[in-house]
């Protein structure tokens, strides 16, 4: 069956008040962005409080749907068949033809839901419902009408043209990216942080990212892996500016000066500080991490408090209550899992102590950090100044 349009259903945006147009415009923008690499000519437009994607001429259906399924804010995607506005008799024929193509098995229940947006059409909605229902019943005697719980809800909308649709492909939900400011994601090579980025982007937040690498302890491939992960997240979140920070000297300095079992926490405190510097430079409104309570030593409530204490921006942790299994499920859904499990060492694990502290307290960390006063500011400044910025964008 050839579809001529997609009707885009959006959920939460609909309940916005006077700002609604902003959300809709962002949605239209994001749809255009998602379809920019897809074969075909697409016209994305708002019309009577709805968003349509019209596809005139040849286009790749699968790719289009795949693209739309990545646009946050979309709740459902309805493939639409458009026909000319015509006499009721012609309309009946069109609808029967549609049903015949869409549902080769004919023993289903259905309901016709007509909407007459174009009031010049001489027959009203109720009459259209009856007429079309009758036509379908006549054509396929095995079908039944069920107005309460139909298998198929056949929508027929009379506008400048007649829109016929009955299928809804679920979208990702959420809000269009770009409607909620931006945040700085701490991206490691692991499973969690890309998922955290995805979750935050889903709420309409634009994402930037920072990655800490530690040559020669981490390899060029580990960095490439992070770029690959950022690219996969950008499939949903749009272009991402990835800051790659050389963290080796800071890490070695901490290793030299601080108690070994505190290394990971102090290291993470410096990561947060550096990430926050970038965030503020770029006008981000918060930091995002993939932490989940108790997953590892550095993610106990005490550890989170200790790392949190160095930040003035809010730190968002969308996975905070998730189990590993749940995180893995999402990472598989968004295709980051396969990349995440490639076995390259990341900078959090290289010097990790056998028994790192699990209940650090802020005062003690601060005291340990006093051992660093001589050189740390200089090292942090250098790390920030020499960071490499990579613009990562997903292209079909």
């Amino acid at each position, binding site marked *: 069956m050839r579809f001529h349009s997609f009707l885009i259903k959006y959920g939460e945006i609909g309940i916005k008040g006077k700002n609604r147009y902003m959300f809709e415009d962002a949605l239209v923008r994001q749809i255009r962005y998602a379809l920019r690499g897809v074969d075909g000519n697409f016209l994305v437009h708002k019309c009577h409080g709805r968003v349509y994607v019209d596809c005139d001429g040849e286009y790749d259906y699968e790719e289009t749907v795949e693209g739309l399924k990545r646009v946050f804010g979309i709740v459902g995607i309805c493939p639409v068949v458009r026909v000319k506005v015509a006499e009721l008799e012609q309309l009946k024929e069109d609808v029967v033809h549609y049903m015949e193509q869409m549902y080769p098995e004919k023993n289903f229940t259905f309901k016709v839901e007509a909407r007459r947006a174009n009031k010049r059409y001489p027959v009203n909605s109720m009459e259209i419902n009856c007429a079309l229902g009758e036509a379908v019943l006549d054509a396929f005697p095995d079908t039944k009408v069920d107005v309460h719980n139909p298998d198929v809800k056949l929508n027929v909308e009379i506008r400048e043209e007649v829109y016929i649709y009955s299928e809804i492909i679920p979208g990702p939900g959420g809000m269009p990216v770009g409607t909620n400011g931006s945040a700085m994601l701490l991206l490691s090579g692991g499973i969690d942080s890309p998922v955290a980025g995805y979750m935050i982007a889903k709420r309409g937040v634009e994402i930037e990212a920072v990655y800490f690498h530690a040559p*020669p302890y981490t390899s060029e491939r580990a960095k490439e892996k992070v770029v690959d992960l950022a690219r996969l997240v950008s499939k949903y979140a749009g272009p991402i500016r990835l800051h790659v920070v050389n963290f080796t000297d800071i890490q070695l300095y901490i290793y*030299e000066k601080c108690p070994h079992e505190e290394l990971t926490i102090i290291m993470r405190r410096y990561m947060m500080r550096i990430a926050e510097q970038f965030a503020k430079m770029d006008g981000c409104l918060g930091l995002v991490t993939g932490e989940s309570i108790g997953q590892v030593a550095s993610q106990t409530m005490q550890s989170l408090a200790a790392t949190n204490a160095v930040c003035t921006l809010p730190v968002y942790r969308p996975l905070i209550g998730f189990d590993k299994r749940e995180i893995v499920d999402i990472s598989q859904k968004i295709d980051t899992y396969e990349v995440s499990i490639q076995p390259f060492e990341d900078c959090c694990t290289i010097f990790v102590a056998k028994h790192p502290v699990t209940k650090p307290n802020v005062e003690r960390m601060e005291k340990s950090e006093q051992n660093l006063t001589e050189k740390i500011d200089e090292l942090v400044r250098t790390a920030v100044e020499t960071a490499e910025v990579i613009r990562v964008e997903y292209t079909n």
Partner: protein
Amino acid sequence: MEVYLDNSATTMSYPEVGELVYKVMCRDYGNPSSMHRKGVEAEHYIRESKETIARILKVSAKEIFFTSGGTESDNLALIGCARANRRAGNHLITTSIEHPAILNTMRYLEEEEGFRVTYLPVDSKGKVKLEALKEALCPQTILVSVMYVNNEVGTVQPVREAAEIVKKYNPSILFHTDAVQGFGKYHIYPKRMGIDLLTASGHKIHGPKGIGFLYIGEKVKIKPVMYGGEQQKNIRSGTENVPGIAGLGLAAKMIYQDLDMKVALMRELKSHFLEGVAKIENTTVHGFTDEGSAPHIISVGVAGIRSEVLLHALEDKGIYVSSGSACSSNHPAVSGVLKGIGAAREYLDATLRFSMSEFTTKEEIDYTLETLYNCIPMLRKYTRH
């Protein structure tokens, strides 16, 4: 300074090889199976390459079959011979330190095709135990495969002796050698050594990637593993990779020019490097340090530094080496070969392979030693507790 010491992973092509490949791709691009002049032209390249290789091995040109490289040659040799000789028996023998192209193919034959495989142990230098071979041979044995030079530690295997033992036991047992690391470093004459099948690869001898050959002795019974247009006497179907074949032939010719002199130079550099390494505390050299090891491979254990870290530290100074074996570095699991030779635990995860070529210079070796002297103490300071 850029120092490439990963020649056992792959080598730089001779520029002449690159030029020839380009010429064959863009000018003499005919299909050797075509009837017209362009096809004949292409066929000439194949014949010339075959003849070059045949002269080097002192075999007949019709016994050379081109493949996509070492892995395919090994697969064809093992699977092709196992299937063709199944009626004579179902027992295969190899060593425990072979390249994965052999080991995994053997495992396949074991698990999927019902063959029985014996994996021979090696001594602490990585040399296969011939006594074990004698014990393993039985009336059902149809094929024995022993590599020429081990790719991870460089130990030269007693191929001639092994073949002799096999042939003495039963002359109809086939003997294969994976000579990917040996071809281009040694004069190998299969017919004098009792070798029935020999694997070699182009990109280890300054030739192109994606090309290799399998020497198949005239009398060997073998079946194809791929089916198609029946090229190469139906042993290996598929339009011949003419540019690769031409490049491989030229590279073979060039690497065997003044080979003895080149090898002597590599030996000199190797002992110089070994002397230098000996000055570093808590290091070890795996395998032999004399003629028992290939002239180009040096496997060094550096206690206290994970190989990946030292590798990247060297990389930072422009020195390219492998950790363990390049083929297995995607799996950071501990090297089976190092385990097999009973290397001490502190070296299992802390071993680098330096591999030279005829282009390696003394300056490069000195620079590498210098860098090691600087890096190692620094890196040892920071270790995981």
